[in-house]
């Protein structure tokens, strides 16, 4: 099979994995050196496709042959898709060629399970090893870890890769057992745990050999099972806490050809995915807990973002006086992000904060008006009920009607 055909099949097969970021690697460069590649620590998106997702890495499967039968996956063994397999050399060459033309920041390599977990993992490791050792490639490498593989192989993977990921796939034990019969949450967690232990070791022993300096991440598919956002966020929180993950990626389930009856035929729940990302960001960056954002079972609101929903449900904390309130609480105000919160803290050391400052900082005035007090502004106390505010501030429901023809189906 031609390289071009393989690329077509194996990129198509890889696009359901949401993770793509190339950030977090230590700074490296190749000036005056043999080989190729640099990392800036920031990660660069080199293009965007019409689905709005960025292209940062060459994201492909080594092969889409797979002996497993995960119901949500297009490459499951009972799926009737064209199959292909790259040779190790081909992936190495493609990565370098794409890199030289500045299409990508590196490689994100995953694979169907062929023969056994160990065999598959060996192949993935071989690609990374060849890139690093033979070609002195200093760009970004992300390897998908096969959870049942020998821990020694995972260790070696961490030597070459900037980031490792083990996908949890679904938010509950029951769903994994039902939809991914060959996988086991127990071994997935053990694999994540073993990666975290190596990361901890490396942190304590800076001279130890390299180990996945950009940490580990995971992906959860949203909408393939009946789990609600409450469950999903709790699982995410568990994973962040237990395995110190850099990121949990949420991937709205996309209907696949010849879909098995066990998974929905519905359009991907993109707005729900979006809200989960927003909530996740609040967990990671803003110090919210899952329990605060989702005190009850159910799903995140679709009409307002999770921070606004939290503020509306917790009116007793508001309005906050920007000139007095504890600095750590400012980012909890709707319409004020982390960066502007920091700027406001800096500014109020110089002088009193006024309403006009918020407008110059391009805060979302409509959102924050009922929630702040400044030197020259005070919202009308208790004048507006949360319900009314919510109606006023709800996002336009554009996403809801994106696929009317599919909604009807």
């Amino acid at each position, binding site marked *: 099979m031609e390289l071009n055909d393989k690329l077509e099949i194996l990129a198509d097969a890889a696009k359901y994995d949401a993770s793509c970021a190339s950030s977090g690697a230590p700074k490296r460069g190749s000036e005056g050196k043999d080989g190729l590649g640099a990392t800036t620590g920031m990660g660069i998106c080199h293009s965007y496709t019409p689905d709005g997702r960025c292209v940062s890495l060459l994201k492909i499967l080594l092969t889409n042959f797979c002996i497993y*039968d995960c119901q949500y996956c297009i490459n499951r063994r009972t799926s009737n898709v064209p199959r292909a397999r790259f040779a190790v050399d081909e992936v190495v060459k493609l990565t370098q060629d794409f890199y030289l033309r500045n299409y990508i920041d590196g490689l994100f390599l995953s694979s169907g399970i062929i023969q056994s977990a160990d065999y598959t993992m060996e192949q993935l490791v071989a690609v990374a090893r060849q890139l690093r050792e033979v070609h002195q490639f200093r760009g970004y490498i992300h390897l998908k870890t096969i959870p049942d593989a020998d821990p020694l192989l995972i260790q070696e993977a961490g030597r070459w890769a900037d980031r490792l990921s083990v996908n949890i796939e679904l938010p509950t034990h029951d769903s994994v057992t039902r939809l991914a019969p*060959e996988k086991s949450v127990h071994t997935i967690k053990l694999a994540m745990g073993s990666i975290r232990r190596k990361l901890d070791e490396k942190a304590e022993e800076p001279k130890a050999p390299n180990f996945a300096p950009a940490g580990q991440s995971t992906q959860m598919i949203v909408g393939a099972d009946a789990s609600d956002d409450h469950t999903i966020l709790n699982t995410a929180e*568990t994973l962040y*806490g237990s395995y110190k993950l850099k990121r949990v990626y949420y991937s709205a389930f996309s209907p696949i050809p010849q879909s098995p009856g066990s998974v929905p035929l519905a359009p991907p729940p993109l707005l729900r995915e979006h809200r989960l990302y927003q909530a996740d960001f609040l967990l990671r960056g803003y110090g919210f807990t899952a329990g605060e954002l989702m005190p009850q079972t159910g799903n995140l609101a679709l009409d307002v973002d999770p921070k606004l929903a939290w503020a509306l449900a917790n009116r007793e904390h508001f309005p906050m006086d920007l000139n007095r309130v504890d600095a750590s609480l400012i980012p909890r105000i709707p319409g004020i992000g982390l960066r502007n919160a920091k700027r406001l803290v800096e500014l109020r050391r110089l002088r009193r904060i006024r309403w006009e400052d918020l407008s110059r900082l391009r805060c979302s005035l409509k959102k924050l008006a009922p929630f702040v007090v400044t030197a020259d502004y005070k919202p009308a106390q208790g004048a507006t009920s949360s319900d009314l505010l919510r109606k006023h501030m709800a996002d336009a429901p554009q996403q809801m009607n994106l696929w009317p023809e599919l909604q009807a189906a």
Partner: protein
Amino acid sequence: MKPGASPAELAAGAVAAVRAGRPLLVRDFTEWRAVARELLGARVAPASVTWGAPGEDLFSGAPASIAAAHNGGDLLSAATQADEQEPINGTTPRPHIPRSLMEMLQTAACYRDHDRWAFLYRVIWRWQQGEHDVQSPADADGQRLNSMVKAVRREVHDMHAYIRFRERPIEAGAPHFVAWFEPAHDVLPQVAEHFVARMGKVSWMIATPDASVLWDGATLHQTGPLMSSAADLIDAGEALWLTYYRSIFNPARLNTQVMNSHIPSRFWKNLPEGALVPSLVSQAGLGARRIGQVEAVGRRSGRTIPIEAEQAQPERQQPSKLDECRRCDLWEHATQAVGGEGPKSAKIMIVGEQPGDQEDLAGQPFVGPAGKLLDRVFEQAGVDRKGVYITNAVKHFKWEPRGKRRLHKTPAQKEIEACHYWLEKEIATRKPKVIVAMGATALKSVLQTGSVTLKDKLGHPVRHGDSWVVTIYHPSYVLRVPDESAKHEAFSVMVKGLKLAQELLDRLDVPEPPSAS
């Protein structure tokens, strides 16, 4: 002012030029900085200065800029050094400009705007007057400064991201890779650095409408414009990229709004994949959105993998009964159950509360900080840890999130009760002569009562079933005690308890003395 004057010469004549009503011509940030410092020193107000820039072109006649930018980083550091060496003159106070503001000014200086130098001078003047909020985006000038900085950074980022190199045949010689780009601001020198680090010894050139940079594998050269587009360069390698771009796009998620918000339209015409976008969008509109698969893949014939379900199942160790325990909810947020550890013949059983963060990952009891402390207790008491059996009252780690950490949480009575099933089994099979309960949870579990307190039993061994039960503190308690002497005291209570356990055992082990005959 004569052309080609050094920044110092420029600066020296600046005040006189302003007084004479002549415009100040500066070509780059280094020159502006030297001149601005001189003017500030002489307290020349912004309103009285006219700034001009020859052709608004960073490169014309300024060959030093790229070399300086590339040599160990930035113009600023070179300028800062100069600052320390040469006093301007005995009387003028040296302006104290913080580094963060200087960096902003330097970045903003790349913004193509006819009055950039005048604006930057106003900012630095205001700072000097004590108006420090001029740096904040909440100030009107600060807002403009910040948005200039943002636009320049954005342009640098976009150029890092959206430059596309095309490969030239080896026979054509260096440069091996060539790119064309139309930057909106004067960011080429900065961007060149990025590609020097990225491309190693491979030669390349980036051409823009006003200037070009060329890396020959070892040195960076800058020249005037060399090309007017890259349209005539043909690179066969590009076809693979287009295939990749087509295939990685998921038509089920079509969302052109986000795509367009990330890549401004002026870039698309120079991106090879730009030409694909309209057809991909319209195909997605034609129903391909129902599935994620790309059309070309869907058309090929596929195949299933003929393998039996049992054979596909990976070989795993059978999970133990303990691993499968669902007697309470603690299993769900833990990694694994942590059972006891120690020789079959052990006569002493040590019972702790529950595994912690480290134990949960390792699957072994007392390997974390509490385990380390316990090791010291063993050592002091003269008891061999390897000879005893160590376990916990509750087998799964109970915790609550605190940021990205797990904070230990004391198990509830119902969890202790649920998990007693396992402890009871361990006691029944090992039949320890002495059980050392560490802390209240262990004590409650061993004695099977919720009402007992640690205080009652500390230092008072009790009989329970066939064993003695000795109560000591939990090592985590010792770790938590804030004051040193109390910590010491708690530690010695643990040592004493363990010694006592050993003594009890020795006493039990002493064979009955033979009766006198």
